[in-house]
């Protein structure tokens, strides 16, 4: 076969076309390949960094490590709020999560009831993708290990160990320290856009923020800074490898040291028993608050877990208001505990304390009869006696002599009517009335803008518009006892080791030393003169370490003539408030205490003084110098005179044996039923 026979023209033409077209299509394919190459260059050379970042974001997962919350300590380093391990069970929300099935599996390992199941499903529904939702907290070790062993079969389940706040003393510090609780939607909203808050941390399951007291006021320093663990994860979010070198350690929150003393505080709550009220103890030398107790209290640990509706309702609706901090939020008329202040005002106004005013038991003024609590009258009283006996007639008349503005001035100087910066929110400043106040308060009622003379006598005995809180009473007592400085209270001793300013770096009181000494003398007589209104209840039984005090009764309702003020048969909320302030040792004042027993009944000595004494005793015995003084070889003090109060006396509310019971405290009884009635 010869060659040309194949290449006839027809075929040649077809071949030519094919060659041209093949060249063209080959060129097109080449162009396509070049386009791919160009795209590769764009992705791999130009945008490489962006994709490398995305790739790392895929590959590495930073898991937030919540910081351990800072401890809250008492002045001796006893921890009042700490953290304990908490085994938690969580479900991670994922695209292909079958929550029902996972919960079914889990319920074979741990008890999951219907309501919990419903809650978890609801929260999973709302949670963002990949966000963990807490199924259970506080698993037992057995439950925790049961789940952990089966972890490979439960890809969306995490069992980890977190930390949860614990308050070892439960209720004793609940009002001061407050509590932490779950971050609410409202908290989240408030924190939104706040650069100082770690939003991711706020959204972390199980993270809690301070809601009250120190926990709230110092929430930021207590929180610390969150860390992270770097993990390599696969597309399903499973951890492939840990990368400890990439971990960012969490910074624990700062420790807050309070001036409180756990022993005194605990004893204070203990002696409150079932009563409602507050006890504040202050160091007279520097203003440190050693105790701030409000009773009844509540277990702050319950709030950490989250209260159930009925539980909260029970607390909120209980008549004695456990949720209210009565040590600084509860306002009461000071009653006769105000009399030392009035005495100071009188002395400052130039009244001669030795001029005696006769007390016949009642006094006619301004168209009505003003009674002394002592129906029979005290007879001629000078200022010293009037404080000792808490004579109303003396103070009615003296207050009229000096006028309301002088009293108000002294009251403010002693700390009433003002807020103290103790670092936690919730104080109420009360009211110290004067002529200026009346003008402001009754703007809409000009007829009431003037100060009526009839208001002054009540003012003189701590009644009327005057209201104070327990903290202010303690400050007043401490200032009086200090005898020099206008002490301010301090609650926060240090934050993260940084000492907070002391309450002693303050100006002096605007009273002369002589006057302060005189009033203190009156208070000493209250507690140590056999005829003092709280003599028996104020015997510390600690040798020559003696207490000075002042009783008080704050009237809750007005009494008709002839109606007995004996409060035994009166409903609780109609009873008088029972107050007592004291300091000790009298000759070298160190500790001031104020006690308010809400609706405690008539006479500061009945309910207030015995409790003050118990608390004071703990404070004194914890002071090594005082202890040395007590324990030096000396004859035991004589037993307190056996005030034989037959029958009717209620048992001493102070429970438990006193640490050093030198006297027969057990038999000390309320003088309510005594012949002299109750001191006002």
């Amino acid at each position: 076969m010869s060659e040309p026979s194949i290449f006839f023209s027809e075929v040649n033409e077809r071949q030519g076309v094919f060659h041209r077209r093949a060249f063209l299509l080959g060129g097109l394919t080449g162009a396509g390949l070049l386009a791919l190459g160009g795209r590769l260059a764009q992705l791999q050379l130009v945008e490489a960094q962006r994709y490398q970042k995305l790739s790392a974001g895929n590959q590495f997962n930073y898991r937030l490590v919540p910081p351990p919350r800072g401890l809250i300590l008492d002045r001796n380093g006893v921890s009042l709020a700490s953290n304990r391990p908490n085994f938690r069970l969580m479900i991670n929300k994922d695209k292909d999560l079958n929550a029902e099935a996972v919960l079914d599996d889990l319920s074979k390992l741990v008890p999951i009831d219907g309501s919990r199941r419903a809650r978890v499903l609801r929260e999973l529904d709302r949670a963002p993708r990949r966000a963990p939702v807490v199924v259970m907290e506080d698993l037992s070790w057995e439950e925790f290990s049961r789940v952990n062993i089966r972890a490979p079969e439960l890809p969306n389940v995490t069992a980890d160990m977190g930390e949860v706040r614990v308050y070892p003393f439960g209720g004793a510090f609940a009002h001061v320290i407050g509590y932490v609780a779950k971050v609410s939607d409202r908290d989240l909203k408030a924190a939104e856009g706040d650069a100082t808050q770690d939003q991711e941390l706020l959204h972390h399951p199980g993270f809690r923020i301070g809601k009250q007291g120190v926990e709230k006021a110092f929430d930021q320093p207590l929180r610390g800074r969150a860390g992270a663990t770097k993990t390599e994860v696969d597309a399903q979010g499973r951890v492939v490898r840990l990368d400890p070198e990439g971990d960012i350690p969490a910074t624990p929150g700062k420790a807050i040291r309070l001036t409180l003393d756990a022993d005194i505080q605990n004893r204070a709550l203990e002696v409150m028993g079932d009563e409602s009220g507050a006890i504040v103890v202050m160091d007279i030398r520097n203003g440190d608050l050693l105790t701030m107790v409000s009773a009844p209290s509540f277990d702050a640990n319950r709030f950490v877990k989250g209260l159930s509706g009925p539980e909260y309702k029970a607390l909120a609706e209980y008549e004695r208001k456990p949720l209210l901090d009565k040590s600084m939020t509860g306002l009461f008329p000071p009653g006769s505990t105000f009399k030392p202040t009035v005495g100071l005002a009188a002395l400052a106004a130039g009244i001669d304390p030795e001029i005696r005013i006769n007390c016949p038991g009642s006094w006619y003024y301004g168209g009505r009869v003003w009674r002394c609590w002592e129906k029979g009258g005290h007879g001629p009283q000078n200022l010293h006696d009037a404080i000792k006996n808490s004579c109303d007639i003396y103070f009615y008349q003296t207050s009229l002599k000096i006028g309301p503005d002088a009293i108000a001035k002294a009251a403010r100087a002693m700390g009433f009517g003002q807020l103290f910066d103790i670092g936690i929110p919730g104080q109420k400043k009360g009211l110290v009335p004067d002529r200026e106040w009346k003008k402001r308060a009754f703007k809409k009622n000009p007829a009431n803008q003037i100060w009526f003379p009839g208001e002054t006598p009540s003012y003189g005995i701590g009644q009327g518009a005057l209201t104070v809180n327990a903290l202010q009473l303690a400050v007043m007592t401490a200032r009086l006892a200090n005898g020099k400085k206008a002490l301010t209270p301090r609650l926060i001793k240090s934050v993260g080791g940084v000492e907070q300013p002391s309450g002693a770096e303050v100006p002096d009181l605007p009273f002369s030393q002589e006057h302060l000494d005189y009033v203190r003398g009156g208070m000493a007589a209250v507690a140590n003169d056999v005829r003092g209104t709280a003599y028996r209840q104020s015997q510390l039984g600690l040798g020559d370490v003696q207490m000075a005090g002042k009783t008080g009764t704050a009237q809750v309702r007005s009494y008709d003539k002839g109606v007995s003020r004996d409060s035994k048969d009166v409903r609780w909320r109609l009873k008088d408030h029972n107050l007592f302030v004291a300091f000790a040792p009298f000759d070298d004042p160190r500790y001031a205490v104020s006690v308010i027993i809400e609706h405690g009944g008539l006479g500061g000595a009945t309910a207030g003084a015995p409790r003050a004494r118990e608390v004071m005793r703990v404070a004194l015995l914890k002071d090594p110098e005082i202890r040395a003084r007590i324990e030096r070889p000396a004859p035991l003090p004589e037993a307190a005179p056996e005030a034989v109060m037959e029958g009717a006396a209620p048992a001493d509310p102070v429970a438990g044996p006193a640490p050093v019971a030198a006297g027969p405290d057990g038999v000390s009884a309320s003088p309510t039923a005594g012949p002299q009635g109750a001191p006002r």
Partner: protein
Amino acid sequence: MTLSGGLTRPGERDRPIIKFMEVDWTFCLVLAMIAGIGSLMLFSIAGASWEPWADKHLLRFGIYFVMMIILAMIDLRVWFAIAYPLYAVGLLLLVAVELVGDVSLGAQRWLSIGPLRFQPSEIMKIGVVLALARYYHGLSADSARLSWRLLIPAFMIIAPVLLVAHQPDLGTAILIAAPGFAIMVLAGLSWRIILAGAGAVLVAIPPFVMFVLHDYQRNRVLTFLNPEQDPSGTGYHILQSKIALGSGGLLGKGFGLGSQSQLNFLPEKQTDFIFATLAEEFGFVGCFGVLFLYGAVIFMALRIASISHSHFGRLAAGGVTATFSMYVLINGAMVMGMAPVVGVPMPMLSYGGTVMGTVMIGFGLVQAVRVHRYTEVTSGKGSLV
């Protein structure tokens, strides 16, 4: 026949040893290189393990390689003779799939005959090329340019394409239609028709996407247009693939260190998206190298087509080259986010027997065209002489 030096004696070219020598071994070497790289990637993806993909990939390549050499020995006239029967069988099988095929992953693509389970659409990829080449072999240049006779090749393409598209297997439909059209172009189709056809396809795409495609197919197209709209849903494939590619950078993360594929962020990492794994671990340099190898394969195959003395051989080799090019271009564009996700793997690189089989059988045909490039193929109907 002066071109081939000493091989002038009649019958000399039919000696098996001569045929064997005539196989384009450079071409084979490039193919082996690509398959080897594929195996290497599969080894890496499996976490430095021959199981479960790399060993099988190599084994398959070996078997198909032998098959390719055997097919290369088959006389071009035999290929010519079986062109129409193969096409007819393929078409019948496609109809059979339509009627009794297995449903797998929502598509009816597979046909089971006893223990054998295969996709007739793959047969059609070769069948259409052969049938068109045979048809044009008997057609004058003028008729191939523009005449009523072109309705027949048009129908030969459209019938299987419609059947495959209905399965639905859009990728394969494109891989049948495009090379078919390429053969028509290579045979000398009038530019007017080419342009009109291209224009018609462009115009038809939007309504086709909106009204004809299945939801999942439409989603793929829409996602392609805006991949960030649903990064965890339908856009996930494209986004993760782009992350894998981009994060590879110039030199890649290193062999076995591609986090995207190793940690399963990349879907279909051993099949359709193996190129992304390659890109991640070997970077721009590695990718460019592999694209160069593909370019070399295409160039060599086109050259084989061009030196064939028979029109049938030219068009058949050209058609197979077009098929292979389409595979590479579509998969490349898809992996790089330039085309919607269609199930088209990267030939020789991706794991999977079907594609490798199709491509290697096609290359067997190409090699046969080279080995028999001087063979005279009669245009007479049914005659093998």
